[in-house]
């Protein structure tokens, strides 16, 4: 037993490192002066260490703390992605003007960020239903606070309020669903659930309700229509950095948890079918539910995005739409689909963060988030304009950007799984999405700036960060075998 604990702790080092970072952040906040800079450096360092530790975990495929957490390629992949997101967000935060106004409380800001990342690490690894829920709540609750971090602003306050109410209800759905699941299967971790399903379940109706409620719970996290309503408002109200964080990292984590849950307990066991209980059981159509939800999400989100006047809202809807595209992969119930999702998520992280970064810089310089104010930006600051154009084009899925690769793989997987109708809808949605992405590009380049609007410039650091984001978006567009190979191998989860 003891050595199991020891071993578990050893396997758990990255998470521990994060906790240490968290504490360090608090301390630094107390002792150091000129906080903003220094605390952020501390956090960066902590994340750096964590990154090293995570790198050390590659290839492991074990379960620790008596089947509480799995450390497997799948988890490692997502930890890496999340760390990338975390690092970038911290970098953003160092540049953000919004936060400077609250520099007195900046310590707790970074602390919370670290906390969220910790929660996400648990989310991607958790195999125990309770731990899943705890991790889920840990990230959520910290996010509620972060969303309202600039609390002096009405919109920020409102955002956090909506976020917490919607979030709490959804987590209520989740835990209630879990309670039913636990009840009907008598198991409290996903392996147990799988075995129970394979052994057969009597109360199928209860099982169905449970699954649907769990799906609802996840759907809120990954913003699937019609459980997405909080997203646009919260994204608009929250500080840009947090919006970016929510739109990318927390979505990634949510997907990771969802994938693991369905992959382990439902997928490779033709579970319900095998023991031939009554007809209902044979056909728990969870993948069809997801397919339909994905289709609705893609269409609705893209359509609603058409009319947005606020760039953050626009990106909010675009990220909802992307959630739809990604969800297709899970709906296929194939490992190919899952690997496609992972590729998509990794790439999506960079292009979306990039777009948000530009939004932040513009907000810093011009203090505006209105799309109308972007007119002539391409002329006023070619670098910024071109970068934004690249990110948007990537989001629209044009070659030779990484966005195209993401779409190719998710579409490809869908086609090879034979869901032609779904991929057709996806294609249609893509066309629609073009309208609003290109509209921003148009504003930036096809409209001349006014005489009054002079050129816009940035310090080299900001430019450096931008380049950091551009490189993967462009490079993965023309040479993507590494990410693909990694994603394909990372589909292996412990216990499958």
């Amino acid at each position, binding site marked *: 037993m003891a050595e199991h604990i020891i071993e578990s702790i050893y396997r758990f080092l990255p998470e521990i490192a994060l906790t240490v970072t968290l504490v360090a952040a608090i301390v630094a906040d107390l002792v150091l002066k000129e906080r903003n800079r220094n605390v952020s450096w501390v956090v960066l360092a902590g994340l750096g260490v964590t990154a090293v530790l995570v790198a050390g975990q590659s290839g492991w495929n074990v379960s620790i703390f008596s089947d509480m957490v799995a450390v497997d390629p799948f988890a490692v992949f997502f930890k890496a992605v999340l760390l990338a997101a975390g690092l970038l967000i911290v970098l953003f935060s160092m540049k953000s003007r919004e936060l400077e106004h609250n520099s007195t409380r900046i310590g707790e800001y970074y602390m919370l960020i670290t906390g969220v990342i910790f929660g996400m690490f648990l989310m991607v690894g958790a195999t125990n239903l309770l731990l899943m829920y705890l991790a889920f709540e840990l990230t959520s609750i910290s996010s509620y606070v972060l969303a309202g971090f600039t609390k002096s602003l009405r919109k920020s306050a409102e955002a956090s*309020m*909506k976020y917490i*109410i*919607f979030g709490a*209800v*959804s987590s209520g*759905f989740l835990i209630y669903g879990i309670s039913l699941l636990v009840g009907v299967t008598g198991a409290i971790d996903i392996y147990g659930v799988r075995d129970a399903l394979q052994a057969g379940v009597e109360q199928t*109706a209860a099982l*169905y*309700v449970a699954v*649907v*409620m769990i*799906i*609802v719970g996840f759907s*809120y996290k990954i913003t699937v229509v*019609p*459980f997405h*309503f*909080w997203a*646009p*408002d919260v994204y608009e109200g929250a500080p840009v950095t947090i919006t970016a964080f929510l739109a990318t990292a927390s979505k990634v984590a949510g997907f990771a948890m969802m994938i693991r849950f369905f992959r382990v307990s439902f997928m490779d066991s033709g579970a319900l079918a095998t023991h031939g209980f009554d007809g209902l059981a044979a056909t728990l*159509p969870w993948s069809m*539910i997801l397919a339909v939800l994905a289709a609705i999400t893609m269409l*609705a989100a893209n*359509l*609603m*995005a*058409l*009319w947005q006047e606020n760039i953050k809202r626009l990106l909010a809807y675009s990220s909802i739409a992307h959630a739809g595209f990604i969800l297709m992969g899970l709906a296929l119930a194939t490992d190919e689909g899952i690997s496609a999702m992972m590729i998509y998520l990794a790439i999506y992280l960079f292009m979306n963060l990039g777009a948000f970064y530009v939004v932040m810089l513009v907000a810093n310089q011009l203090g505006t988030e209105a799309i109308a104010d972007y007119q002539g930006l391409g002329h006023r600051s070619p670098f910024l304009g071109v970068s934004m154009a690249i990110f948007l084009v990537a989001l629209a899925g044009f070659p030779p950007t990484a966005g195209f690769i993401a779409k190719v793989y998710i579409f490809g997987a869908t086609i090879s799984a034979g869901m032609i109708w779904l991929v057709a809808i996806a294609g249609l949605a893509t*066309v*629609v999405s073009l*309208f609003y992405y290109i*509209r921003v590009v*148009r504003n930036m380049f096809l409209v001349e700036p006014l005489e009054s609007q002079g050129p816009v410039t940035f310090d080299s650091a900001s430019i450096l960060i931008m380049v950091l984001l551009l490189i993967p978006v462009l490079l993965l567009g023309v040479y993507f075998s590494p990410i693909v190979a990694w994603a394909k191998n990372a589909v292996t989860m412990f216990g499958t």
Partner: protein
Amino acid sequence: MALESLIQLSLITLFLPLAGFLLLIFFGKRLPRQGDWLGTAMVSVAFAASLFIMFVKLTVPESVSAGWTWATFGGISGVGEVTIELGILIDNLSAVMLVVVLLISMLVHFFSMGYLEGDVRYSRYFAYLGLFTFSMLGIVLTHNLLMMYIFWELVGLSSYLLIGHWYEKKSASNAAMKAFIVNRIGDAGMFIGIMIIFVHYSTFSFDAIFGALSAGNLPFESQAWLTAAGILIFCGAIGKSAQFPLHVWLPDAMEGPTPVSALIHAATMVAAGVFMVARLFPLFTADALLVIAYIGAITALFAATIAITQYDIKKVLAWSTISQLGYMVMALGVGAYAAGFMHLVTHAAFKAGLFLGSGAVIYAMHAALHKQHDHDTDAQDIRNMGGLKSRMPVTYWTFFIFTLAISGIPLTSGFLSKDEILAGTLAFSTLNGHWVLPLIAFTVAGMTAFYMFRLLILTFHGKHARSERLPLINEVPGVMGIPLMVLAALSLFVFYSFNPFGASSGWLFQALERPMSVVPEAIAPNTWPVLYEAISRVHTLVMILSIVIAVAGLAFAWLVYQKKIFSADKMAAAMGPLYRGSSNKWYFDEVYDAVFVNGTLALTRISNWFDARIIDGIVNGAGSVTHVVSRISGWIDNTFIDGLVNFLANFTGAIGMRLRKIQTGNIQTYLVFAVFGFLIITIVILTF
């Protein structure tokens, strides 16, 4: 000498005029005298060569030809090879035609030196003459359909350029356009005909096609297709030779300089149609030939009726040209091959002469009017002329000879050919019925004599319209006079046959013996021996008849316009509608404008509207319904206006608009939607 060397020689004759064209187009302006001498020299040399070619060729029976590969298709493993050749064929037909074309061309070159002296685009004019000569020679010398079509279009081009020589005048450029487009219609038919032939035989060369046909290999194994091909190809001739119903362009073409009218629209290009029919004679079926004959007859008749009432000296000649061309076509149609072609030759001489003569008259009139500073009087209207005989003797006497020739008075070349044609038609009707044809033929002969003498008398005899102008009118310079004399000489019988009353014994007639038809017996026209036998039966009768009729026509004109025994106006009044119809060219132009031109224009407008409204506004319904929406959002108007884009933008946009409505900002509404979502899913699951 070896016949093969004729090929090289013919190539030289072919390319000399082209060289002239290129040199003049690029350096014309810088050369002395703007290089008119250059173009003329080129053509003269070519003419000499052509004479040589003809004499050599006529001494030997067999014809000579050569071809060069132009394009190759297929020829890889498992795919047959198709080779397309361009090439030269020299037989009696082309040899004679060669001389005719170059002779007239040369004379016109000389005449033009005088006529266009000091013109704005003098060198350009000679360049175009060269281009035309080249293209015409191409038609004459070719040994395949494709090359014939190519040069067919090229003469069209040069004719377009020359008609539009004075393009500052709207009427001129209009006429040029009309000529080209009307011809294009004929050419389209011809092209289809050629396609039928090629697609079946995979070759364009005459020999190959005739060979395959005589072996009984019909296009798509059907006689109908063969006849169709024949008639379609003949469409080209209808266009070029201004046959009914595509004759409308020729009178307008008179907008070009008169020497051009002489060369292109009287002697050579318009005769190309006739030449082509002669060239392809073997593949025409009896039915095709009958159609051809009737087209010719109709053309001949109604053109003559129009010519009678015209007052513009060139218009009269133009209509008479159409009528004479109809004559030739009819002759070929009935199978009087040699007669038809001979008439082409003789007609070339005297009609060119007539045009040049009229050119001389117009030239003199212009000079006189210029001296009077009179810019209103029309220098081409014969009502403003009269009595020129005294002032312009050379012109008068040559013109007189030409008129005799065209009216078919004995001792002229015209008599010989025309007499043969009449005989041919009559013989044809003795064999196959169709009495209409000879009837028309004789009528037209009479009318021709009448209106030509009417023209002669009104122009040269009687008193001049304005007595004070007469002394100002002077004879034209020698460079214009000599060509007239040469042509006049060539309008006499001796050059074609030593027997003034029988062409059949003449060298030309002998040289142009009719080729064997290659179409199957059943649908072939009656063979030459048969027809010839019939001709010789009716020949004497025809000769007498034709003389009588010609003289009658002549005499009548004399009585009406010289002696004024009958008043022309009274007769016109008596004729009433007939007269009006004739003087208005039976309203062809009006009808065509109303039907085809406006029809097409309407069509273009319709399709344009269609493009803008329907195609480009798919489901404009969606567009208009949601127009309000697009108002609300300013950007959509200036980004997406119409078309598919419009549809997409408005339609999807509208949906998007509706969907946004649910994003009310009230958290509880959100939750309601979410809960509904949950309930729907659950219910669906539990029920299915």
